[in-house]
């Protein structure tokens, strides 16, 4: 059975379409990742699936329940670990967990036992009776995760679980997330804009850009779909078309294109093809000023599917601010 079924989901805030006809399914026990740049519609999707927002159109079913019509039932079986750290600074770790238990009507004895379990699982037992204001950022995030687990959710939503954390803490959080899937068989839906995170954790990934899902598959197949290594060249040229044609004549070249001032070439056996390509270009009088060769990665997959790099966000500060305002006002 599928844990999550999403069909042609749309969410718009005024003129801004945050989620545009998204469709996907997540299997039970799967660790499913939503990968995309900031503002791509990841959090909006999570907010719809966790019953915080109502979709403009389309359908979403979580754990067999419709998120609009059966929101109450959905809420009982999901856990959300939001982007922000919401655990209470003024309370101890244990008190925070007991507060969560209260929200889900767990009985006190059972809740105490469960709290000890999840604290143990996330290595927080020693800090349980300390106020959260003494916790480090990583500990707070772990407590947040622990709180999300208190009521044994079937499906756990993690919104940017490692945003703003240092490298060691990130790796630690990854290990905990894997443990949840491997040992508890939990279905986990996570969003991230870190390629390495999606690659290291997820069974399957959906790449989302401007509210649209552009590709869904396992990280491995996505990388394989690139068809080989990537070579990027900066070449002195008069006409990019000539250069592209020239490159395409080489046998092991599968695809060549000119974008953003660079020639982007997909090749087999990059190590051997590269010298050959340089020789060909030089012979025709094209001076190569820069060469980059990359092994297939999700970074390249993203570029391939969306035509732009994940890091190099286009747009201005004002535009970003305006979009935020639109979303805020539309939600008000």
């Amino acid at each position, binding site marked *: 059975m599928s844990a999550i079924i999403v069909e042609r989901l749309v969410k718009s805030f005024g003129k801004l379409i945050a989620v545009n006809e998204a469709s996907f399914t997540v299997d039970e026990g799967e660790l499913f990742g939503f990968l995309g740049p900031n503002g791509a519609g990841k959090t909006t999707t999570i907010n719809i699936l966790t019953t915080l927002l109502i979709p403009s159109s389309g359908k979403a079913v979580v754990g067999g329940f419709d998120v609009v019509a059966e929101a109450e039932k959905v809420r*009982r079986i999901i856990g959300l670990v*939001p982007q922000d750290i919401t655990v209470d600074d003024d*309370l101890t770790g244990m008190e925070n967990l007991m507060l969560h238990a*209260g*929200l889900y*009507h767990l009985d006190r004895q059972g809740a105490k036992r469960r709290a000890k379990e999840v604290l143990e699982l996330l290595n927080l037992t020693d800090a349980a009776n300390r106020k959260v204001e003494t916790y480090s950022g990583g500990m707070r995030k772990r407590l947040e995760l622990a709180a999300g687990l208190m009521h044994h959710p079937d499906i756990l939503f993690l919104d940017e679980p490692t945003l703003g954390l240092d490298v060691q803490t990130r790796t630690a959080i990854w290990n905990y997330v894997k443990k949840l899937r491997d040992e508890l068989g939990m279905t986990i839906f996570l969003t991230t804009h870190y390629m390495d995170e999606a690659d290291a954790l997820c069974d399957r990934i959906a790449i989302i850009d401007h509210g649209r899902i552009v590709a869904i598959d396992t990280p491995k197949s996505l990388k394989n779909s690139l068809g080989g290594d990537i070579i990027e060249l900066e070449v002195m040229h008069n006409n990019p078309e000539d250069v592209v044609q020239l490159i395409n004549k080489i046998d092991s070249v599968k695809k060549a294109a000119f974008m953003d001032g660079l020639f982007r070439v997909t090749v087999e056996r990059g190590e051997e093809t590269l010298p050959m390509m340089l020789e060909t270009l030089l012979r025709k009088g094209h001076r190569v000023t820069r060469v980059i060769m990359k092994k297939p990665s999700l970074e390249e997959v993203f570029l391939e599917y969306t035509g732009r790099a994940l890091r190099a966000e286009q747009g201005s500060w004002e535009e970003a601010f305006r979009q935020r305002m639109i979303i805020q006002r539309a939600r008000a």
Partner: protein
Amino acid sequence: MRDIVVEIYVLLGRELKKWYRSPFLLLMTIIQPVIWMGLFGKALNLTGLLQVPEELLRQLPPDATSLIAELFNKVMTNLFGASGIDYFSYMSVGMLSIVVLFTSMSSGMTIVWDRRLGFLNKLLVSPVKRGSIIISKVLSGVVRSIVQAILVMLIAIALGARYSPAGPLAPLVALSALTLLSLGLSSLFISIAVRLRSWESQMATINLLNLPLMFASNALYPIKMMPAWLQAIASVNPISYAVDAVRQSLLMGASMSISALLLDIGALTLFAALFTGVGVLVADRGLRRG
């Protein structure tokens, strides 16, 4: 139903724990009314204006003395309700309602912060009833208001306020009046806060309303001293009714007016019922999904 009680208990517990564990905040919210009492109650001695110095009386013929004393007593009774009241006691009782006003207003702030820090979303994805979230906020505003009002009253007594309760139940009547006022005000400000997204706009709303509500009431001076238009405002201001109820029960002693007290409690009950009802409904809508 049992679910709702448990949820309110859990959420109210969180609110109150956060409150009593920060004694600094508690202190700060009490200091302000105490300063007001010091500045207004001690310096602006309105009743002192109506006292005639002894040596002046001695210079007048005896029948004039008793006439003047009678006249001044009548003026005092007319303005302040009883002749033997000193201004500090008079306004310190008014301050109790002002403490309730300020504290109830700030209870809306916590929902703005919960939204901002993401805790509200955490609540909204849980099976907790939307109504429980609002009611626990309102109740925490009421509990905080009453505890702070009692503290301010004890400080006022320490500073020399003289109260003469009309009977053993009088303090309870006073507290009920303050509770009703706090219920209505907390609901009002929480329903505003649910609609507002930023704490800046919530602060602006509070600052816009707090001083007018305080000055256009009988908390600091008798309504009869006001111009007619201000009297009209003061007579629909719920704070006036709470202040009067507390004065009738704590200050007037034997000259307490039962009919005035009944009118006060009736008006406050109406205010609390209306604003709590509408406030909870409006706030509940504000928590609905977009």
